[in-house]
């Protein structure tokens, strides 16, 4: 875990150096169980930065979310770097960005933060109810200490941590320029048992399940926009000329959207679970993504976002690739 003072000092140092144009991290939210992601540009704002178990968002998403207007004639573009604070899972997004050459290594300064897990707002609300004031929470080895509505309590990790944390294999950042805090021990693993269970269902049952889930979708595209790997300048579902997906919401178009997004993430999803967290309609989007993650692992022995020198899965070929995947 990291001492917040260390983190703030490092942020100040980096911002004061003039090396970076913005630093992405977390600050305290205005209420509830989640921190707010924040983008700061000046060392004077660094005291807002925090890190604790409420820092669920993936700051790596905001690297590619940065919008750049054309540089006015006579002015030079700001080519300074972007600094980003990352947990283990978040760091995999940066690695995958580098694999895909979304930007180059020299464009980013990575502040790596070892993490014992972040809390799931939905689980926390079921235990403690709503939290009008911002919650403080620290994940420890044997549970999560949480300060909510004026009381401090300790709950087991299983009760309150996000699902992604309960199967976390990368609690420490896989890439970092400035590792902040001591590394933490890996304490969980991922056997994909949830996906295996789902695979046992009949095609009819699976279809009925997804029909119900996709029909809830309001196509707000929060899952796409928050996804660090959904950084296409123009997304195929919102492209107007030519138009591939209708803008009307119905089961058919919603299904097209979700299936194509899942396939687009095959071999790319780094399982930060942000898509599922942000969904206002509680669609279990990760169930789709994890099925593809499992297939990719089993068929191609490939895991995205762990090796910055790797080839993207869909850009690599091996004569031993299984043929059943080619339809």
């Amino acid at each position: 875990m990291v001492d917040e003072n260390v983190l703030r000092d490092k942020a100040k140092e980096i911002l004061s150096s003039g090396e970076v144009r913005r630093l992405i991290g977390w600050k305290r939210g205005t209420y509830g169980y989640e921190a707010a992601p924040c983008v700061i540009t000046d060392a004077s704002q660094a005291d807002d930065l925090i890190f604790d178990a409420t820092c669920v968002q993936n700051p790596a998403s905001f690297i590619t979310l940065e919008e750049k207007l054309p540089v006015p004639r006579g002015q030079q573009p700001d080519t300074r770097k972007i600094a980003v604070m990352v947990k283990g899972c978040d760091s995999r997004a940066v690695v995958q960005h580098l694999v895909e050459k979304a930007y180059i290594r020299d464009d980013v300064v990575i502040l790596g933060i070892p993490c014992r897990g972040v809390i799931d707002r939905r689980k926390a609300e079921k235990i403690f109810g709503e939290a009008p004031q911002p919650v403080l929470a620290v994940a420890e080895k044997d549970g999560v200490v949480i300060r909510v509505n004026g009381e401090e309590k300790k709950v087991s990790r299983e009760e309150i941590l996000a699902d992604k944390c309960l199967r976390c294999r990368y609690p420490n950042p896989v890439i970092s320029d400035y590792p902040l805090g001591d590394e933490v021990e890996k304490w969980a693993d991922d056997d994909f048992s949830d996906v295996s269970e789902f695979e046992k269902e009949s095609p009819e049952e699976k279809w009925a399940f997804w029909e119900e889930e996709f029909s809830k979708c309001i196509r707000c595209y929060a899952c796409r926009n928050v996804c660090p790997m959904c950084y296409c300048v123009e997304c195929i579902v919102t492209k107007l000329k030519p138009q591939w997906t209708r803008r009307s919401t119905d089961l058919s178009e919603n299904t097209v959207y979700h299936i194509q997004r899942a396939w687009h993430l095959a071999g790319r999803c780094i399982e930060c679970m942000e898509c599922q967290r942000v969904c206002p309609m509680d669609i279990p989007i990760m169930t789709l993504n994890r099925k593809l993650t499992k297939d990719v692992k089993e068929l191609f022995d490939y895991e995205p976002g762990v090796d910055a020198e790797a080839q993207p899965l869909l850009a690599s070929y091996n004569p031993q690739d299984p043929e059943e995947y080619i339809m």
Partner: protein
Amino acid sequence: MGDYKILKEKVPDFIKALDKFEVFAPVKKGDTVRFEKIDDPSRATLDFSNTNVPPKELMFPETETLFRYRVVSTEIEPKVPSDEEKRVVLGIRPCDAMAFSIVDRLFGWDFPDPYYQKRRENSILVGLACAEPCSNCFCTSLGGGPANEEPLDAILYDLGEFYYLKTITDKSEAFVSSAGDALESAGDSERAQATELAGSAEKKIKRTIKTEGIPEKLPSLYDHEFWTQYSNRCLGCGICTFLCPTCHCFDIQDEIEAFDGRRARMWDTCMFAEYTLHASGHNPRPTRKERTRNRISHKYSYFPTKFGVIACVGCGRCINFCPVNIDIIDVLQKSKEV
């Protein structure tokens, strides 16, 4: 008007008795709650804080057909809702009901919108007073409240064993007379309990914003740097607007299957880049800074300038569902300080 009560176990009978109407009520699916047409009364629930999607979708659906046509012909077949489709909407929270009064001004302005207006006219709105407001509710700052009646036709209060039903408009008579045995009469004691419930609920609302001066101030912040503090972390998704009970923007698209076509409208949002993108490629709102500014300014300045009322009811959805904690109360408060 009238005072009635409905025993909780009689609610399904009450819904069943309304068989000459289409009944819409909240339905729970997992942790999400949304209004649906009720065919099986046991699916309706009145035990919820608020629906994920506001009941605006009952008047202004996510996607609706404006008219149909055959591409090869010049005949157009309008799809305006018919007068026959009488509806009862049960369990509307007062904030969401108040939103209808606001959106009515837009859809009734100059060129009245027959699709929205027909559904509004055909619907009897039965509210559900709030006993336990959510922590981000701020309806009292916008002139609403846990038992605000405008523009409801009737309102329910959860008084433990039973719901107290207070009818408000003449329109509610039609459904009271259909409800038959499910309704019992009520009187002063229930009325007093209802007043107490509303009073205690109002005290539980902790979040507030003083709106005075905001509509005048916001245009002066057009170029202000403070918008980027928020837009920097904005994802540009449609949650805050799609789930807003007063957001009413839409797109119109032609869709064809072979020779059968329709012109349809669907929810759209000022948070999407495509919303204002010209065919030439020029975008007058090129980044999320301009789009965030437009969303807040539209609600709290442009709409009130044009229609005389702030386009926000304080339901708190945009705060609750924003994945990056862009908290409209915080934005407005900052706008007053900068």
